């Protein structure tokens, strides 16, 4: 009977002892936003077919990803907003320099239940009325948002406070990052929000466009009017076209990867980043549900990597609203010169 027990211990000891095998190049580590994750995962999957260096991708959220990145724990940080001042400082303190690469655009869809007949559009100020911190306990019914809407309870669903989506939405709608009412159903898992809104006729929610695209039959998307005529007048629905041409404002945003300059000294990391840009642009970004930048952007990004252009185009201001692709490219060329 001692044998049986010693088998267990022996098995444990054996795995521990035999685990050191032939050296392998250290894996390329990416971590960060769950929004960017599908792109990084798709690229890593394709990369595995052509290169022996392993790539691992984690989901710590944009903020969590930067914490690790600035502590030199990762090579690449996935981010659904630009790096913030506090993160810039943290990286600087630890001597981490980085190349910032805006990769694609993502839209935030505002959705209601398909049977909701009264909402056919919303203005950004109505969204603000619904979501601002002062709305807590005051804006409880649909009729509190617009006169003539039913005097029925308004049930709100939104991205969790650890997500870049929440950061961006609050900045775009309430004009103050991370300020919103607290009495809404929040989840970091967008599928929870999808089923929440799909199962409640009085619900309104917001989340990444890809989640709406995959659940079109269960949801009704609300066109958004930002009351500005210069980027498309009237209410505009989110789609690949309206996000790309910059008319679906203010709820479309660029998403990024940040690459450590020190990691780029490794040939395989530099090669991986170029592969990321090339394959991403060719098909992977669109395939996983995001909107690629215009084609001419990618050579500029590749040059940025080659020349190791460090620092952020966004001056560490965090989420910024209304950044069109054109404006971003101009900034980029300016910075590259």
């Amino acid at each position: 009977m001692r044998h049986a027990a010693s088998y267990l211990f022996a098995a444990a000891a054996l795995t521990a002892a035999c685990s050191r095998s032939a050296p392998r190049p250290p894996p390329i580590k990416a971590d960060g936003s769950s929004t960017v994750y599908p792109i990084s995962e798709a690229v890593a999957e394709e990369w595995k077919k052509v290169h022996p260096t392993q790539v691992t991708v984690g989901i710590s959220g944009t903020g969590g990803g930067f914490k690790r990145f600035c502590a030199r724990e990762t090579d690449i940080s996935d981010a659904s907003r630009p790096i913030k001042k506090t993160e810039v400082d943290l990286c600087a303190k630890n001597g981490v320099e980085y190349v910032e690469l805006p990769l694609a655009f993502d839209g935030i869809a505002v959705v209601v239940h398909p049977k909701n007949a009264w909402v056919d559009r919303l203005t950004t100020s109505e969204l603000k009325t619904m979501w601002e911190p002062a709305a807590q306990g005051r804006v409880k019914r649909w009729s509190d948002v617009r006169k003539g809407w039913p005097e029925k309870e308004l049930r709100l669903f939104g991205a969790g406070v650890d997500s870049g989506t929440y950061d961006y939405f609050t900045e775009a709608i309430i004009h103050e990052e991370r300020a919103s009412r607290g009495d809404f159903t929040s989840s970091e898992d967008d599928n929870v929000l999808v089923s929440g809104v799909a199962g409640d006729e009085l619900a309104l929610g917001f989340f990444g466009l890809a989640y709406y695209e995959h659940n079109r039959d269960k949801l009704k998307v609300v066109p958004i009017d930002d009351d500005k005529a210069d980027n498309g007048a009237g209410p505009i629905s989110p789609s690949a076209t309206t996000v790309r041409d910059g008319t679906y404002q203010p709820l479309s945003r660029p998403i990024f990867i940040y690459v450590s300059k020190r990691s780029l000294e490794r040939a395989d990391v530099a090669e991986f980043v170029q592969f990321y840009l090339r394959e991403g642009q060719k098909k992977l970004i669109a395939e996983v549900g995001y909107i690629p930048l215009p084609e001419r952007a990618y050579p500029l990004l590749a040059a940025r990597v080659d020349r190791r252009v460090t620092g952020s185009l966004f001056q560490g201001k965090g989420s910024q609203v209304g950044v069109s692709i054109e404006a971003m490219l101009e900034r980029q060329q300016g910075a590259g010169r």
Partner: protein
Amino acid sequence: MSQESLPVTAPPRASGIPRAGELEGVRPARHALFLALCVLALIVPLAVLGLLLASALHVSAPRLGWEFLTGYPSRHATSAGILPALAGSAALLTLTAGLAVPLGVGAAIYLEEYARPNRLTSLIEVNISNLAGVPSILYGLLGLEVFVRALGLGRSLISGAATLALLVLPMVIMTSREALRTVPSSLREACYALGADRWTTLRCVILPSCLPGILTGVILSLARAVGETAPLVTIGALTYVAVLPDSLGSAFTAIPIQIFNWVSRPQAEFRANAAAGVVVLLALTGALNGLCIWLRVRLGRRA
């Protein structure tokens, strides 16, 4: 039905518990009700488990197969597999057992066999019982601070295993102590009477006779560890790992994390993968419990 004539206050027989038939005669209505409640209590959890398993099997039917077990993660639901997560879970399980069993059983032996009953001992005992009730996420945070940061082990397999070992340690200690207590003191005394010392008694008499009980506790604790997600998320088990763990310092993923990842995808096809992951996880815990029963029967017979 001669028992019907027995008086209600019939004294229990010298041999102890009255037989079921006797009680039935005594208070038929109450007894039937109690029996019904017991059967219901048995049926409800079994039905829930059966339903869960049936629905998981039904949803996962298109994905469950050899390819799924040996595949690597992918953005395409139909080609995504669970191998790295399965290997990660298996490695975690082995390492957790390697860390928690010697420590836990050792602590239990000390507390039961060697420790003097004083303030310090009872303080330790109270703390162990309390630790068994601490939410697993707290162990994750502890693991993050101690193993990942302070000891500099990084977000590696060994950090994960050490965290899970901490998590199951109180359970291993408590169940092992229970098992040690079942050894009748007459056995010990007989051994001492034959001139054996403490260590010999422990090694040759006490441990062998309570081994089945200890193993049951250990395996049930490990079955819990294999389903834990929260502590692994905090210490940074990754989501996309297309490589099997090959060293203590490897990045790793585990089945519950892979399931979580699949469930949170926008594409509905991934639900089948998640369900298939659930089936694999259930099979793994089922196998562990089976191993536990087998060991108990086998060792019990020999002891």
